[in-house]
């Protein structure tokens, strides 16, 4: 699904990712863990195609295609979804309208027909229930005045709605209390499938108790310094980043 090789990325002329390699197959859930400043968010943005994240060398293949050559909206239409750490507010644009606009934009890019307002409403309602998202919330302007938990739930709702092939979750646990974390994790687990790859980016092991990964990678200084199974997350929690970094050096 996703093969990253020797990826070097700079932001404002400063190199952040320094030779990152990573490979995820369909049906797998991988976790990227790392301390602040290790390059976690840079990785998520470069995969989504955000402006200002310059690939110096290396390659990103997504389903055999060169991901870096695609515009961000094209990546979205082709099934790349990034649940953001800080979902943005768009005043005056209702959440429902946003969901419909985005869903149909993706469909149109794939040469599929639009779904009408009623159809989208049905689809959204069905998915919203499991995430404890109310009708009232869908009528509010996108993310405006939403609590941290509401914002993250809405990200997962979008993931459920767009059914991406590759979902990247950037610090989805940040700012969530334990109940909200459980709702979000259940939502994510419900979307695990043999067709879908997931990359869960997090600072803490706590999220991985709920979303259990197949592989764990430790990111530090712009490189993967250690890999392992799900038990690596527990090891990290027990030893702390400093110890793991020292061992890897």
């Amino acid at each position, binding site marked *: 699904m996703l093969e990253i090789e020797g990826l070097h990325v700079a932001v404002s002329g400063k190199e952040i990712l320094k030779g990152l390699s990573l490979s995820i197959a369909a049906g797998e859930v991988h976790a990227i863990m790392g301390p602040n400043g290790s390059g976690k968010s840079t990785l998520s943005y470069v995969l989504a195609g955000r402006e200002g994240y310059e690939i110096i060398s290396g390659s990103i293949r997504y389903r055999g295609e060169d991901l870096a050559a695609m515009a961000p909206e094209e990546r979205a239409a082709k099934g790349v979804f990034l649940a953001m750490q800080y979902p943005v507010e*768009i005043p005056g644009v209702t959440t429902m309208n946003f969901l419909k606009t985005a869903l149909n934009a993706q469909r149109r890019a794939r040469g599929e027909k639009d779904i009408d307002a009623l159809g989208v409403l049905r689809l959204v309602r069905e998915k919203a229930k499991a995430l404890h998202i109310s009708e009232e919330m869908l009528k509010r302007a996108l993310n405006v005045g939403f609590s941290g938990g509401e914002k993250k739930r809405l990200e997962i709702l979008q993931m459920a709605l767009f059914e991406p092939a590759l979902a990247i979750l950037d610090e989805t646990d940040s700012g969530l209390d334990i109940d909200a974390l459980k709702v979000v994790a259940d939502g994510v687990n419900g979307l695990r499938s043999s067709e879908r790859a997931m990359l869960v980016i997090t600072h803490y092991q706590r999220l991985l108790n709920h979303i259990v990964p197949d592989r764990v990678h430790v990111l530090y200084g712009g490189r993967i310094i250690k890999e392992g199974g799900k038990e690596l997350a527990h090891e990290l929690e027990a030893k702390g980043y400093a110890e793991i970094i020292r061992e890897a050096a």
Partner: protein
Amino acid sequence: MAALETREQVAALGEKYKYGFVTDIEMERAPKGLSEDTVRFISAKKGEPEWMLEWRLGAYRRWRQMREPTWARVHYDPIDYENAYYYAAPKSAADGPKSLDEIDPKLIETYNKLGIPLNEQMLLAGVAVDAVFDSVSVATTFKEKLSEAGVIFCPISEAIRDYPELVKKYLGSVVPVTDNFFATLNSAVFSDGSFVYVPKGVRCPMELSTYFRINAQGTGQFERTLIIADEGSYVSYLEGCTAPKRDENQLHAAVVELVALEGAEIKYSTVQNWYPGDEEGKGGIYNFVTKRGDCRGARSKISWTQVETGSAITWKYPSCLLRGDDSVGEFYSIAIANHFQQADTGTKMHHLGKNTRSRIISKGISAGQAQNTYRGLVSVHPRAANARNYTQCDSLLIGGKCGAHTVPYIESRNKSARIEHEATTSKIAEDQLFYCLQRGIPQEEAVALIVNGFCREVLQQLPMEFAVEAQKLVGISLEGSVG
């Protein structure tokens, strides 16, 4: 839901200014330039009575002594008033409006291109249309249904002939002949426009609509609209405007007067999409318009809603005179300026009566190298006890070369007045755009979506069928503004 429609329609339109076609129709014109003879020519063409001609000539003489105002934040080469035509009419319509099936098919075709069906579609939509093509009203629909309700809706030239006492009483009573340079010019040479009279206690059974189009080359358009809502009546009036693409600048100097008597309400909506000039700032309409409403009676209400996306220059301040006690004035505005457009627009709320209230919501969007100014006055007369005003001016900037300016004037001479003013300036943030892109929404559509969200409070004031059109325009007028 509507934003989706926006995108679809924007996509369907493709081309940047779809109204830029020219209709090839034989025109009858007044001689070039402006003189007493021009004024006499126009008056004679209209078959006007002597009193009307005198009124015009008085305006003309006054205008000769006036100077073009320079206080607005707009810059343009001097207008040569002697090098323009002040009257142009399709030859076949020179004898005044006829019934729909007698009208030149080419005109009908033009209106169809504009998406203004003067036929059953409108009947279904329940809108009565008075279409002004250059200087003459070519068709007024639904007269019968309106006359059953006692509502008069006709070209103003017809009203001058058929309802002289109403016209004499109200014409120039809100915007005096001597009001300002452009209004005085209009008083001298206006060639047509709409007239509406809604009798006491009547709720106008349908939305009234006028569609203005400048077609002929080198022509100014000077329409004059007069709306009178008698005691306890209600009317909603819509106005739309387009013009062909031309390299030269064309002058549009309209006057709109609204009179609301006791307990009456007038809702006036405009979607202005005159040709804005090209991407280098060449051509486009100079839009110098005087619009004023008089809340003459107690508990009357006048509400202006405008979506200004076109014109090279916009100079326009739809205002309210809140004379009647407990009267209400509202101004909802979206002004978009892209490329080299300049907009200086806002409102004036004159609180004269007791317990008068006004509300101003202005949304200015600047892109390209455009300059967008909100200029507004809230004045409270010494006798206007308990007057209240709320003003909110929001500016949105797209890109780094445009400008937004807010110039609010507040004059309060009564201590009991409560005046609130809020202003914000923001940019479309990179993270908002990225968020949209990441969810698969292409850039231009994302800009349209965000801007429509920014304008939402104003768009909600528009009648349904106009709101869709307006959202579409927001998207089109900002094409090419990002990236």
